[in-house]
């Protein structure tokens, strides 16, 4: 067995964590806030790698879980906003509800608009935090039971999840009195973490998100290293064989699908803390597809790779879109990078790094090539 210290993967993780933790030394608060947002996207990359890379389940509706987490957090933060305190009620009430209320309606959260009572428990921030994780897990578990229990696999899972995120987006926009529809939830307050207000541009907020990302990456990596993680990868290669070995294949797929949803919900929740808004655009198809692109570029077979891929692409996008010469062309550039990576590095940057390390440590053996020569 390789010893822990000679395993380059561990060093890759440690190096990445060190870079993240050292980043505030640059002293650029504006960029720190941006990077914090991209770290949330990094979690999404890891979540995609978990299902797509390890389970072979391509979810084209990951935005649904991100959106659930985002709204669950945005609701308490909306109530904490100064805009909710001046609506002629003892309790905070979101401003848009007042605009949507029937004339003469009570201005209490219980009954100002139809269904507004759903907001009542969200007066507690921690309820929002809990729901940001629990709601995606519940949805993913029910969905997983349905899909995987019916032995649905491959492209059909992608079609179902894609349809579902669009359906959810429709409902969200349609429920204007409850969700402020197309406009989303804006003018949010700060999250209060044990007495510290999380100002989106503060270093503290950056560290909260960095630590969350580190915990997510370590847990996800440990999870795929368990026996269950190996069985999951086995189901990716041959469901039938895994069944014949006596494994409850749908249970494995559903479990990891739910874990991926929990990570996405957490990402959505933290994103709202730094971005100060939640909107139906989180459930746009383009956003869910972007996540898949991030994971593909970073390497879907590697949790860390997919995470770094998401962060890099977003930094690249931001830089390119701000460079005057590239203002028109940056989307084409990002598209080109994607095409090049898919053609030359089908396993993404993570797979490329893996091969390089094997080559350097002398453990790299071109088995596939040898095979061809032999035959």
């Amino acid at each position, binding site marked *: 067995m390789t010893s822990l210290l000679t395993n380059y993967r561990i060093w890759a993780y440690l190096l990445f964590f060190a870079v993240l933790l050292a980043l505030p030394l640059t002293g650029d608060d504006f960029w720190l806030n941006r990077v914090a947002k991209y770290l949330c996207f990094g979690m999404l990359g890891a979540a995609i790698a978990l299902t797509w890379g390890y389970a072979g389940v391509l979810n084209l509706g990951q935005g649904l879980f991100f959106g659930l987490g985002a709204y669950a957090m945005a609701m308490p933060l909306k109530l904490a906003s100064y805009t909710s305190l001046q609506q002629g009620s003892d309790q905070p009430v979101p401003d848009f509800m007042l605009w949507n209320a029937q004339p003469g309606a009570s201005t209490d959260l219980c009954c100002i608009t139809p269904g507004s009572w759903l907001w009542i428990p969200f007066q507690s921030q921690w309820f929002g935090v809990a729901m940001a994780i629990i709601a995606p897990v519940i949805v993913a578990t029910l969905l997983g039971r349905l899909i995987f229990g019916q032995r649905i696999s491959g492209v059909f899972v992608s079609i179902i999840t894609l349809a579902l995120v669009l359906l959810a987006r429709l409902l969200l926009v349609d429920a204007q009195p409850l969700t402020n529809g197309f406009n989303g939830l804006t003018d949010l307050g700060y999250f209060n973490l044990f007495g510290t207000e999380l100002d989106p541009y503060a270093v503290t907020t950056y560290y909260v998100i960095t630590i969350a990302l580190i915990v997510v990456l370590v847990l996800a990596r440990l999870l795929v290293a368990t026996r269950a993680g190996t069985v999951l*990868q086995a189901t990716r290669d041959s469901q039938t064989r895994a069944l014949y070995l006596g494994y409850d294949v749908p249970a494995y797929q559903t479990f990891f699908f739910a874990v991926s949803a929990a990570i996405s919900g957490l990402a959505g929740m933290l994103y709202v803390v730094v971005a100060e808004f939640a909107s139906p655009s989180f459930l746009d198809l383009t956003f869910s597809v972007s996540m898949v692109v991030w994971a593909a570029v970073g390497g879907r077979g590697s949790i860390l790779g997919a995470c770094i891929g998401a962060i890099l692409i977003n930094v690249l996008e931001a830089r390119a879109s701000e460079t005057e010469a590239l203002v028109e062309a940056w989307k084409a550039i990002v598209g080109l990078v994607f095409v090049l990576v898919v053609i030359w590095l089908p396993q993404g940057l993570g797979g490329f790094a893996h091969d390089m390390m094997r080559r350097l440590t002398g453990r790299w053996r071109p088995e596939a090539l040898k095979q061809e020569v032999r035959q």
Partner: protein
Amino acid sequence: MSVYALETEALGVSFGRFRAVDGVSLKVAKGELRVLLGANGAGKTTLMDLISGRTRSTSGRVLLNGRDVTNLREYRIARAGIGRKFQIPSIFTGLTVRQNIEVAQSHHPGVFSNLRIGRSAADRARVEEVIDLVGLSDQMKTEAGTLSHGQIQWLELGMLMIQSPDVILLDEPTAGMTQAETGKTAAIINRLKGNQTMLVVEHDMAFVRDIAEKITVLHLGRVLAEGTVAEIESDAAVRAAYLGSQEISAC
């Protein structure tokens, strides 16, 4: 307990008016290696299908260690202790050789009981023992998808072995193999002989001579002859029915 690991009693199946297997009675002792020989259409694979539950029999019984397992569902027969290797190998291509064997070494089928890292020293030792037995020690960390055809067959054999089934059914384990690979397969099977009950369907006479103790010859769904390699090779009925003009000693 029966002294026989696997018994079939007048086992038969009809597809319409055609009797593919017509009252076959076999008694395979514990640890015995039995080879099933026969021309195409003699009913060898169908007989394996009947034993492993893939096809439901229309007459007769299958006994595993004296216990009736006739026509149980496939996975129940597998759990009862009959492991089967199909002609087309099925392994986990994205996992390493070691991981393939580890996944096959399943004690718990559920997710939550498998949420831990590492395995007991005894389990690890057994995994390495099996990999060694099928001759893949050098490929322990190789991704299974890049193995050669022969190596894939051995890996699948290893996956069967680590489940320690009471009986292993092998359907043409050397199909498509080179001579060297066939030789190695024979060596693996010979090493298992005595401890593992096996029923092997095979065409390749050279290979059969290498491994066989006792041969059962099937012809048109019935047992035509049973005996040692020498007895079968000199049996006039077998020569007439199965070998026909083919010269067996030339193989």
